[in-house]
């Protein structure tokens, strides 16, 4: 047996180390669970990190109310299988409580409203560390994110005042009221995630595989028919053969036309993809620094 690890095993070992550091350094950590493949992989890594004990954190889901029904069904099944607690922060409730106002206009989404719901959920439950499945290869502002990302008492990220992160020494010290966002799979790429899902036979929502769906095209992005958005005059719903590369709020998650109905085919497609997976995300396209701006306010 050779004493070296493949890149996937080395990434796995690094992520497990960080998940365990989070458990050891904080009082009340949680996993931010979106129902997408990255947070599913993160949850599996958390299971491996503590086996044979159960995952010692709750899963926190910020529910925009504009979900793919399949995501919710998948989430509930996983929660039951892993025996973890689920905490749901509801954007609808934030709207009903008058904390945020629904965006108006034809391109209205609840993406930005999530920030308030997320920060309120963190505060109510006094989570001092929230782990997320963000990766540095996803977006240029994320390329400079730390594994342990310090947030002030308002949940804000200050990119100019980040703690240096050396070797594998993670500094989770903080003042009362402050918290951390922690990104254990920072060093994984989209390809690594898919290969790991294949290697570990991890179950993911069917939405990632090619299927027939009623969709419309807005600003070059294929959007699933959803009942939350009004159609513009020139837009028309038609049946298409598609799959999703990322899963988020149903109103902003773009699909790609694809016949890839197995993990092997998806990996083949990712290997030759010409656009980034977030290329289909309307939330990032609002401006060149849309992600950095949201992150500063407290987004994942």
């Amino acid at each position, binding site marked *: 047996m050779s004493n070296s690890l493949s890149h996937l095993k080395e990434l796995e070992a690094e992520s497990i180390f960080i998940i*365990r550091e989070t458990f050891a350094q904080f009082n009340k950590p949680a996993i931010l669970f979106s129902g997408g493949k990255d947070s599913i992989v993160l949850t599996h890594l958390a299971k491996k990190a503590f086996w044979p*004990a159960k995952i010692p954190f709750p899963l926190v889901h910020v529910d925009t109310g504009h979900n793919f029904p399949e995501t919710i069904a998948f989430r509930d099944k996983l929660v039951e299988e892993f025996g973890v607690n689920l905490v749901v922060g509801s954007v609808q409730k934030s709207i009903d409580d008058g904390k945020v106002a629904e965006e108006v206009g034809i391109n209205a989404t609840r993406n930005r409203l999530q920030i308030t719901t997320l920060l309120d959920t963190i505060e109510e439950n006094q989570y001092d560390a929230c782990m997320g499945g963000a990766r540095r*290869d996803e977006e240029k502002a994320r390329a400079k994110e730390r594994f342990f990302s310090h947030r002030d008492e308002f949940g804000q990220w200050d990119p100019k005042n980040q703690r240096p992160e050396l*070797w*594998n020494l993670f500094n989770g010290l903080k003042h009362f009221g402050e918290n951390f966002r922690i990104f254990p799979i920072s060093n994984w790429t989209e390809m690594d995630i898919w*290969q790991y899902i294949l290697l570990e036979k991890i179950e993911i929502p069917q939405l990632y595989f090619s299927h027939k769906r009623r969709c419309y095209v807005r600003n070059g992005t294929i959007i699933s028919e959803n009942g939350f958005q009004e159609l513009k005059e020139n837009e028309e719903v038609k049946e298409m053969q598609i799959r999703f590369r990322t899963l988020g709020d149903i109103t902003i998650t773009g699909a790609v036309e694809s016949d890839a109905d197995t993990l092997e085919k998806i990996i083949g497609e990712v290997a030759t993809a*010409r656009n980034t997976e977030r290329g289909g995300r309307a939330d990032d396209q609002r401006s060149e620094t849309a992600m*950095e701006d949201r992150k500063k306010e407290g987004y994942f």
Partner: protein
Amino acid sequence: MKDKNYLDRDLLRFTTAGSVDDGKSTLIGRLLYDSKSIFEDQLASVEATSKKKGLSHIDFSLLTDGLKDEREQGITIDVAYRYFSTPKRKFIIADTPGHIQYTRNMITGASTANLALILIDARKGVIEQTKRHSFIASLLQIKHIVVCVNKMDLVEYSQSRFDEIVDEYEDFAAKLEVEDIRFIPISALHGDNVVDRSKNLNWYQGSTLLHTLENIHIGSDRNMKDCRFPVQTVIRPHSDEYHDFRGYAGRVESGIFKVGDEVTILPSGFNSKIAKIIDNEKEVQSCFPPMSVVVTLEDDIDLSRGDMIVRPNNQARASQDIDFMMCWMGNEAFDPQKKYTVLHTTNKVRCVIREVLYKVDINTLHRQEEDKLIAMNDIARVKIRTTKPLLIDSYTQNRATGSLILVDEATNNTVAAGMII
């Protein structure tokens, strides 16, 4: 299928440092572009911004400079991590700024790297910045340096100019502790010897940059001799099936542990044997760095976070007096009167500063014993005394048990990195 060999791939982390005009961004852009790791939407966005700035070429630095301030000021401020892979390897680039005021970022990038990529402008030869980057690579014990002599097109692809630079660099590098230094003549702009061999550099017999990165042997860089297992946390399932289970979770920092091995627990000094090693929810027979595993012992001993499992005949040194090379990273000057928190492996202790021995001029490597005022980016040799013994090795012997950070107790910021002597 194209990616069938994904299981055989390993991981190489390398660091680069450079300033605006030495072609670093162009080189990284070229590596990403030629290995098809840049996507059309990224390229389109960079093209549009380049045009808006009135540039005639694509400014690849816009890919790596992710923050608004960096893009506006046209400089890299922070470490940016970039990823690409070939069928042979996955690569993580820690891309850092090169200017002296960003020494701390270079050290951060170098702390996890297997290899340092150093760029020299063929017209300028070895300059202060080259020496600084090389010194940092040596200080951080990076085992491999690849020196790319860039912009060969601007010196007519001259072999004698290349040889001159190699001589100049080797002269200076004799003072460093780097085992493996290689030189490659390239032109990042034209792609000579980056991914494809160059016809313009026929006199060069060595490998291209990508070929070098793909094939450099890093397997033996890890310390497989001195067994060190710092305990991160204790696993107690409290379930019926695993009622008495008590496992120690952590990462093997060095050495190879096998089931049945005699071990010593530090700092208590108790001996036991390894009963089980669990990796990925399964029992395995052995573990090695950098695996994250759970270990159980044959005897009922009370271990907790901060303890370390070692072999009886090869133990880490327990000491409260620690002598190390320090890079100061705090915005405020170093204050030898203050107490600091020390983070080392999975331990947290407090310390007082005993002595500042000397400061190192990072450009000349000269020791300054008179001026001991330490500001951001300064490197100095320092002695501290800790409230509790730490389980240490020298940094040259062991990167994990030989490194520490200092944290300011008022702000909780990480203010210094230390390499134990």
